[in-house]
């Protein structure tokens, strides 16, 4: 009541489409802090579970109700390019991490994305469970081959705990797990583009491909030690953090975005970390000591359905995240995001982000794919689920993946 007279008239209201459902509550809290700092009202609109950010964003555009800030997937930027505001003159552009903005540069010279988060995925381990299994301090760098992994699974099983849980969601299996075989084809920085090209043209024979076969052999091993072996497709996302956090399994394949959920069940005094997914028995093979990491979930600004005032306010939010103490604090400490900026010196507090930072500092990262075809996770995910439940064999899986890629335009 008391401030109404002061702010009336110049109270800008903007909204943000959030496609990271796991930080919805944290974003809402941060939006309140942002409003206190700047007087700009910020509403966070969640993208419903099971809907892709593209679906939500395109329907908001169609209804003439586009949010000022959209958190979309990197691959979707090109579709919205006519509607996005140029950000290349913003201050934070110079402070972004090297290569972070490459995917956001348009042919016409505009740069449209704000690198919101650095994310990585691989096997997450519960250190307490693994310490007990190996009888001492578990060293993640000791897992370099598939044999090492199998030994570890056996040891965990002997200690009376299930080795791992495979979460059977299509987006995890085909959006994260399977692409490891795409990005380990070579050490070329453009490996994903080249692999995609070869798959589209049908020149990559997956059945004979060592990386694909190696990864699927690792997957076979995972299937054998999966806690849900009896009914592999029944699991849900929520089951993963519960089992891992409470120490009922030692390992879960997922990414650092899962930390808020793991923390809810944590019994291991916040001691978790990542192990690479080994794809062969040769410790020197590319991919056996690296984990996939990428800048994901860019924030882009609408220029068509928001007023100039709103666009300025949206830019201000990006500056706030990048430079203000409260903004950086919100990003790193509240939302547990690894920022894509060099100038943010706050160290991530959660163990998974720390683990990713370690891999990054040691240069042991693979470039996680950010530009897969939009329905890859769903179509190929169904094939992966069939393989997981032994509905098809590896040759059948290879055939389905290959025929999917041939339909991609």
């Amino acid at each position, binding site marked *: 009541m008391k401030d109404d007279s002061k702010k009336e008239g110049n109270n800008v209201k903007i909204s943000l489409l959030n496609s990271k459902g796991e930080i919805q509550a944290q974003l809402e809290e941060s939006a309140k802090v942002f409003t206190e700092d700047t007087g700009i009202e910020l509403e966070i609109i969640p993208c419903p579970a099971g809907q892709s950010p593209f679906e939500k964003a395109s329907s908001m555009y169609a209804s003439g109700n586009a949010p000022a800030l959209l958190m979309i997937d990197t691959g979707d930027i090109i579709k919205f390019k006519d509607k996005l505001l140029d950000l290349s003159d913003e201050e934070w552009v110079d402070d972004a991490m090297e290569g972070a903005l490459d995917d956001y540069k348009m042919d016409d010279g505009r740069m449209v994305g704000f690198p919101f988060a650095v994310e990585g995925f691989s096997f997450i381990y519960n250190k307490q469970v693994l310490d007990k299994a190996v009888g001492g301090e578990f060293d993640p760098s000791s897992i370099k081959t598939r044999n090492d992994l199998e030994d570890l699974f056996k040891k965990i099983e002997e200690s009376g705990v299930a080795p791992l849980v495979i979460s059977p969601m299509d987006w995890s299996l085909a959006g994260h797990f399977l692409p490891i075989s795409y990005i380990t084809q070579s050490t070329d920085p453009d490996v994903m583009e080249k692999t995609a090209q070869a798959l589209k043209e049908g020149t990559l024979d997956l059945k004979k491909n060592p990386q694909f076969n190696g990864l699927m052999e690792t997957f076979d091993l995972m299937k054998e030690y999966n806690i849900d072996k009896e009914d592999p497709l029944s699991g849900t996302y929520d089951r993963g953090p519960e089992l891992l956090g409470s120490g009922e399994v030692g390992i879960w394949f997922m990414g650092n975005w899962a930390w808020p959920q793991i923390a809810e069940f944590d019994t291991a005094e916040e001691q978790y970390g990542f192990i690479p997914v080994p794809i062969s028995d040769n410790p020197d093979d590319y991919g056996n000591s690296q984990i996939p990491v990428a800048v994901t979930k860019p924030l882009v600004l609408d220029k068509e359905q928001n007023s100039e005032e709103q666009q300025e306010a949206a830019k201000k939010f990006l500056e706030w995240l990048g430079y203000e103490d409260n903004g950086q604090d919100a990003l790193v400490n509240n939302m547990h995001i690894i920022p894509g900026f060099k100038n943010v010196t706050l160290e991530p507090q959660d163990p998974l982000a720390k683990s990713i930072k370690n891999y990054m500092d040691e240069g042991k990262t693979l470039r996680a794919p950010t530009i897969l075809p939009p*329905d890859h996770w769903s179509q190929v995910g169904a094939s992966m*689920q069939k393989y997981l439940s032994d*509905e098809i064999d590896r040759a059948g899986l290879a055939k389905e993946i290959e025929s999917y890629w041939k339909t991609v335009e």
Partner: protein
Amino acid sequence: MEGKRGTWDKIKTYLMFAGPTTFIFFTVVILPFLFGIYLTFTNWDGVSEEYSFVGFQNYASVFSDPKFWSSFLLTLKYVLFIVIFINVIAFFLAYLLTSGVKGQNFFRAGFFLPNLIGGIILGFIWQFMFSNVLVYMGKTLGIKALSTSWLSNPNEAFWALVIVTVWQYSGYMMVIYISGFMNIPKDILEAASIDGASGFVKLKNIILPLMVPSFIICVFLSLQRGFMVYDLNISLTGGGPYKSTQMISMHVYEKAFLSQQYGVGQSEAFVLFIMVAIVTLLQVYFSKKLEVEA
């Protein structure tokens, strides 16, 4: 002169009573429908400002999309089962609840209740039932058929969909059948009883023929809802496991918005419209012939 005036008067009366509805129907149904048909000839992706004409290419891809046809066959199978089960169950519920059972109003309300819950919520409730409650019961009681989630097996997930749909709509159709039963003239039934007709003969020769209008409505409604099922599909099985229970509407939606091939998705929707229209028109046409006068 007089003729013209009569027409004008008719138009005025029509506009006065049905004008607003006609306007709304035209703007929210007919126009989008026509615009949708127009879009089937383009390669629009759903957002971009530019698109070009591609002729009948989208229709060609509809006919060469194996997943569209497998979803369509699955939907036909689903429609077949739900139409039969819904109508048989609803008819007998109505028969029982008009025969003077104690507390029949209470039962009528009870059977109608599921229909008041929206499809999405209903799907989530039953998802919990199938993957948690039943599994828990199966494991503790040692029933093998229930010890793994029904929703993780393609065949069982299909039946889960059928069961929930039947549960949802039987009560609704029951209400229509009840009103059908109430409208059967008592004197005919009484005359039949005096002539010595048994319960079954009365049902076969009097009740069923007189109930044909109710059957037409109920079969039409269940056909149409079966073909258009989306909300329950997405919330109960999500099309899974591995897209094996993906009904046609969900496939069309995913084609248009997830695969970002709006033109192809729209063409599939149009093909679906034509097929559903043919099926339902045939059904109404043939069953109208069965109608009799009391």
